[in-house]
């Protein structure tokens, strides 16, 4: 395919930049409190929480849904101190 005839984009990680930099608050998980229910990972709009509940802070936008939906209150949103 002739590369430059057409505005065709290719799938790539970070296509829209490191959205982690958008955050004002970041989710911090209290592993003690967590019961591995998977809610946080399920409801993260951007799918940045892995199955084993690790947040990809390079991309997490800090929306706070994970914290809001955690049945154990195990996630706190902490102010970024950038």
């Amino acid at each position, binding site marked *: 395919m002739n590369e430059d005839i057409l505005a065709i984009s290719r799938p790539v990680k970070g296509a*829209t*930049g*490191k*959205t982690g*930099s*958008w*955050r*004002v608050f970041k989710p911090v998980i209290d592993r003690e409190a967590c019961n591995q229910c998977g809610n946080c990972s399920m409801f993260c709009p951007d799918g940045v929480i892995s199955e084993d509940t690790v947040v990809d802070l390079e991309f997490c*936008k800090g929306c706070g849904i994970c914290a809001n939906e955690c049945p154990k209150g195990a996630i706190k949103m902490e102010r*970024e101190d*950038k």
Partner: protein
Amino acid sequence: MYEIRIHSRGGQGGVTAARLLALAAFRDGKYATAFPFYGAERRGAPVVSFVRIDDRQIRVYSMIEKPDLVIVLDSSVMETVDVMHGLKPDGKIIVNSAYPLEVGGKKASTVDLTGIALNVGLVVAGSPVLNTAVIGALAKMGTISFESAKQAIKEMFSDERNISAASLAFSEVNI
């Protein structure tokens, strides 16, 4: 012609800050234009706005290449964007920061706009609004007169807290 570039994020009020600055310049009897570079991003992404101030009509529409002043409303932008790009050798930079800092080897003026906004209660949809506070700081830096800054704020906003924010920034900015 005095040229200013503002770095912020969608939702933080960088565009409005630019307009406020231009309006204040009108009230100082100057010519001015303020304009954003709009990407198609949603809120959160870095955005850039520009202000030109001059004693005669301004006919340039292209982006500012060599600003006299760079304003950074969100310091995290500096991680991905070269905010010093093209800054004139004698140009100035002011950063929204609670701490003093250097950018690209240059001492920046600083002011805790976020702190001020949270203090006076200027928060919209969870985000602190920084545009009126920063105008106060710029007045202190001499970009516009403080009187005009206040007048411009009054013309655009009815909420008194905006004036308080500007006043606080005026007095707290570290030049």
